[in-house]
């Protein structure tokens, strides 16, 4: 027990040495002190320690700290840990710790510890003192708790709180105050409240003056304020509205106050909300009434509860009529169920509001379209009260929509079905959109064309035709580009296109894209080329021919005449240009001729070979022949005449010569005919008149012979016989001659008749001779032809009579036949008579030609001449074939004439 010894020694030697004195002091200190060895064993404690722990020190010497807190190992461990820490770093240490001490109670303590060294300087242990601070901490804790509570309230209050001193300057404020006022606390503190820092107004908007400050009012009146409203004006005109309460700070029950406390809450939102509600209600009322839309409150069973003016106007009912009616009553029959489902959904709360379009029937029966929005007004419990319906008249829009749709559709169809190729071309020159026709024209499928540029498929010769004009187009100097150019189709064929292009611009006038129209004019171009070629050909032709070309305007004034005219005619063209055709004289035309020509032109008829004999400057004339055709433009409007002219002077002269020759010939023919007729007439008259004296000679000779014959001598009687015989032959001659002349002068009209008829007549006339000669006359069927029956009978009679007269030794056989020779008949009379020698074949048809003496065969030599004349009068010819001694065949032809219908 060296330690205890030491303590005891210390006590004993308390006055003896400083050390003893220190021990005595320690022992007498009211502060518990203890010593511990390096290994943690208690070496000694003082009286205060014994009292504090309630343990006798002597019993505890040598024990460790764990023995001190048998039931509180945590405390022991803490101490031990602190000891270790101290040994780690020798020196002083202090820490607060709550320990269990006397009576098992807990004490708040501060341990102060310090190491000490032995004589060798090694740390030998520690000395500790315990300061019981339990009482202090309790008071502090109570105060602190109180303060803390207030501070918490102060700081955590939603109300802003400012504390003012006696001079009404702010000495404290909470965070809410800072937040509500919007000024940092340090700036507020020391100031005369926020009303001095910021412009403030009363509830009615008047500015708050210094005396009106809530604190001043409070101080002046001595009464706290409650619910005093002050607004802080914020930049931008908004207000932060505060409800301010004030109170006094006093010591105890003292009537004197040393400060003022002010609490305030931000009622801006509330106040705004109230205003908003008020405004909203007003606005709603006004809105409801003045709304451009039709508004209605509709009960759950579909009756109108409230309607606005616009709705009344829209539906054509008065408010009085509409309220009480059902929605169903004014709905279009076809749209009765349109609103049903959406309305139910809104009523069920599935959706807030719904919008749909339906038709209504106005009072006047008209159908109107409305866009309807329905929302449900509910009570606080969410139960539907009524429906709010907003109706907008979209009748016009519906119509416009329809028109628009139609227009768009039309546009689309137009685009697609356009007879022209249509393309939208981007500003990068690439095709954006093309229609089918364009694909056809260019020969590319749409998929290939889109994205290509027009330049890629342009004909190399036409590359820059459009580009040259683009700047002007984009600058707005020209409205469109119109060109004709060539493109190379996909199959490398060339297509001519009439290209026109405009620029589509946005509202700001900026180009968006180009719209281009393509028309295939290949055929036209080819036609033009062909036309040009044709015109060239025509031009060369007119250059080479005698013709010239002319044009007349709508008033028939000559506006163009090719040079060829003056070259050909020598006429002065200036006398004709600008004038009408009838302004210049034509020697061959009468006024009536001109009027007719003019009328023809005015009827816009073509004319041919209009001949004019124009006087020439040299005193002669030129014959001009013009032909013309009216010109009509594409719309069918008359544009004048064009045509050709020809100098026909030479032809006219030739014609005149020919006509003169012809006239002379005709005159000669007439003379010849007259001469022939005179001759025939002469023959007729002569033969007729010759008969008179002949009859006298013959008759009186016979009368002489009859009365005085017996008185005459033989010679006289013979002479008289010759007179009578001569007179008889002369009579026959004259009669034949008369018959011959009568063929030409007394012929009858040709009439269709069977040729058998004159044949039968002839046979009848010859019956006596035929019977006398026992002749056989036969014939084939003969055709019907246009003939002079009397003359043909004479013809047959002469021919058959000849056959009988010149009959051979046998029975005469005479046969008549006809052969069809296409354009004429050939008739033959064949006999078996004596025949004719060939050298007489022609002679026998001549007048007075006879082959036999009067003694052999009587006759005048006129019969066959008459036959020839008859045949020739019928347009045919007559000839004979014969073999002497065997017979003759007389042939004659009769041309076929058209049988008159």
């Amino acid at each position, binding site marked *: 027990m060296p330690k205890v010894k030491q303590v005891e020694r210390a006590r004993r030697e308390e006055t003896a040495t400083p050390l003893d004195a220190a021990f005595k002091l320690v022992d007498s200190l009211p502060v518990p002190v203890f010593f511990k060895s390096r290994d943690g064993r208690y070496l000694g404690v003082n009286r205060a320690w014994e009292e504090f722990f309630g343990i006798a020190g002597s019993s505890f010497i040598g024990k460790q700290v764990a023995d001190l807190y048998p039931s509180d190992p945590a405390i022991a461990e803490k101490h031990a840990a602190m000891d270790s820490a101290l040994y780690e770093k020798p020196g002083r240490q202090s820490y607060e710790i709550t320990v269990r001490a006397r009576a098992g109670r807990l004490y708040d303590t501060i341990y102060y510890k310090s190491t000490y060294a032995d004589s060798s300087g090694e740390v030998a242990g520690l000395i500790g003192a315990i300061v019981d601070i339990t009482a202090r901490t309790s008071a502090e804790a109570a105060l602190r708790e109180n303060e803390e509570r207030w501070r918490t309230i102060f700081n955590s209050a939603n109300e802003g709180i400012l504390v003012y001193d006696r001079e009404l300057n702010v000495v404290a404020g909470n965070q809410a105050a800072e937040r509500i006022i919007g000024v940092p606390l340090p700036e507020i503190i020391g100031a005369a409240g926020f009303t001095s820092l910021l412009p403030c107004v009363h509830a009615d908007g008047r500015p708050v003056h210094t005396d009106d400050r809530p604190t001043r009012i409070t101080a002046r009146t001595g009464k706290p304020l409650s619910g005093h409203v002050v607004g802080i004006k914020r930049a931008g005109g908004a207000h932060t509205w505060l409800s301010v309460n004030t109170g006094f700070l006093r010591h105890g029950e003292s009537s004197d106050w040393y400060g003022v406390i002010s609490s305030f809450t931000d009622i801006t939102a509330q106040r705004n909300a109230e205003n908003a509600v008020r405004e909203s209600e007003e606005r709603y009322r006004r809105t409801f009434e003045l709304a451009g839309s039709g508004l209605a409150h509709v009960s759950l069973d579909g009756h109108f509860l409230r309607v606005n003016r616009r709705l009344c106007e829209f539906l054509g009912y008065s408010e009085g009529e509409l309220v009480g009616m059902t929605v169903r009553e004014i709905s279009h029959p076809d749209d009765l169920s349109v609103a049903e489902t959406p309305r139910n959904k809104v009523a069920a709360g599935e959706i807030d509001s719904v919008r749909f379009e339906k038709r209504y029937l106005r009072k006047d029966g008209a159908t109107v379209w409305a866009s309807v929005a329905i929302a449900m007004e509910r009570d606080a419990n969410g139960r539907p009260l009524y429906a709010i319906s907003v109706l907008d008249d979209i009748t016009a829009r519906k119509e416009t929509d329809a028109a628009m749709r139609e227009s768009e559709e039309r546009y689309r169809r137009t685009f697609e079905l356009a007879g022209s190729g249509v393309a939208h071309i981007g500003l990068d020159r690439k095709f954006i959109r093309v229609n089918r026709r364009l694909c056809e024209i260019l020969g590319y499928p749409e998929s290939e064309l889109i994205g290509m540029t027009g330049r890629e498929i342009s004909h190399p010769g036409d590359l820059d035709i459009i580009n040259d004009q683009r700047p002007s187009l984009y600058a707005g100097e020209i409205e469109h580009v119109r060109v004709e150019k060539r493109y190379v189709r996909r199959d490398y064929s060339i297509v001519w296109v009439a290209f026109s292009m405009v620029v589509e611009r946005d509202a700001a006038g900026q180009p968006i894209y180009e719209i281009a129209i393509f028309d295939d004019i290949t055929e036209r171009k080819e036609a033009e080329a062909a036309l040009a070629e044709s015109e060239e050909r025509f031009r060369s032709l007119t250059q080479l021919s005698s013709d010239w070309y002319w044009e007349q305007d709508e008033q028939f004034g000559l506006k163009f005449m090719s040079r060829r005219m003056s070259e050909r005619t020598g006429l002065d063209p200036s006398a004709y240009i600008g004038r009408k055709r009838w302004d210049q004289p034509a020697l061959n035309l009468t006024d009536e001729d001109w009027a007719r020509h003019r009328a023809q032109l005015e009827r816009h008829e073509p004319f041919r070979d209009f001949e004019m004999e124009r006087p020439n400057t040299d005193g002669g004339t030129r014959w001009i022949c013009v032909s013309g055709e009216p010109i009509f433009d594409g719309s069918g409007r008359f544009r004048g005449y064009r045509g050709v002219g020809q100098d026909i002077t030479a032809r006219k002269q030739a014609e005149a010569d020919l006509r003169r020759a012809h006239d002379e010939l005709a005159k000669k023919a007439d003379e010849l005919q007259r001469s022939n007729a005179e001759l025939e007439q002469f023959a007729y008259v002569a033969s007729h008149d010759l008969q008179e004296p002949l*009859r006298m000679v*013959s*008759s009186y000779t*016979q*009368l002489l012979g009859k009365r005085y014959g017996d008185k005459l001598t033989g010679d006289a009687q013979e002479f008289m016989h010759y007179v009578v015989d001569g007179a008889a032959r002369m*009579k026959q001659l004259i009669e034949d001659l*008369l018959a011959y002349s009568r063929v030409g002068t007394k012929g009858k009209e040709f009439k269709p008749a069977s040729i058998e008829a004159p044949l039968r007549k002839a046979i009848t006339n010859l019956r006596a001779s035929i019977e006398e000669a026992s002749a056989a006359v036969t014939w084939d069927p003969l055709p019907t032809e246009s003939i002079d029956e009397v003359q043909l009978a004479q013809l047959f009679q002469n021919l058959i009579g000849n056959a009988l007269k010149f009959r051979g030794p046998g029975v005469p056989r005479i046969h008549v036949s006809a052969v069809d020779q296409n354009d004429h008949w050939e008739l033959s009379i064949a006999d078996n008579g004596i025949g004719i020698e060939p050298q007489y074949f022609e002679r026998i048809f001549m007048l007075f030609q006879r082959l036999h003496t009067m003694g052999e065969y009587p006759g005048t030599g006129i019969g066959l001449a008459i036959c020839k004349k008859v045949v020739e009068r019928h347009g045919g010819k007559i000839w004979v074939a014969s073999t002497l001694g065997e017979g003759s065949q007389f042939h004659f032809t009769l041309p076929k004439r058209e049988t008159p219908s």
Partner: protein
Amino acid sequence: MTDGRSPIEILLVEDNPGDERLTREALKEGKVYNNLHWAKDGVEAMEFLNQRGKYKDAPRPDIILLDLNLPKKDGREVLQEIKSDDKLKRIPVVVLTTSKAEEDVLRTYNLHANCYVTKPVDLEKFIVVVRSIDIFWLTVVTLPPNGH
């Protein structure tokens, strides 16, 4: 030469005295009982028929022998006037022609001569013709009753 009846009053209109004489001779040869009156042209013939001038007392002829080729007024005109005169149109007219051709011409006028006789060259034939006229008159023609 009467056989109890009146002679036939014959008016011969003929410009040729040879023919007048020959006719007279032929009538004589044919033993026709007649009074032959001779008018030398158409004008004279019409005066005779209308009993004008020197023919005031001329008889109404029973038959007229009319030549066509007459001076002043030719046979066709005379025939026309006779046939358009109600008093005369029943008198038979025998037209004496020189040729068949004349007959054709006359027919075309459609003047309804009662008979056409071509003057024959042969005397005997002429006598036969005149004789046949006589027979024609005696046997066929019944004279219409005299209006006066």
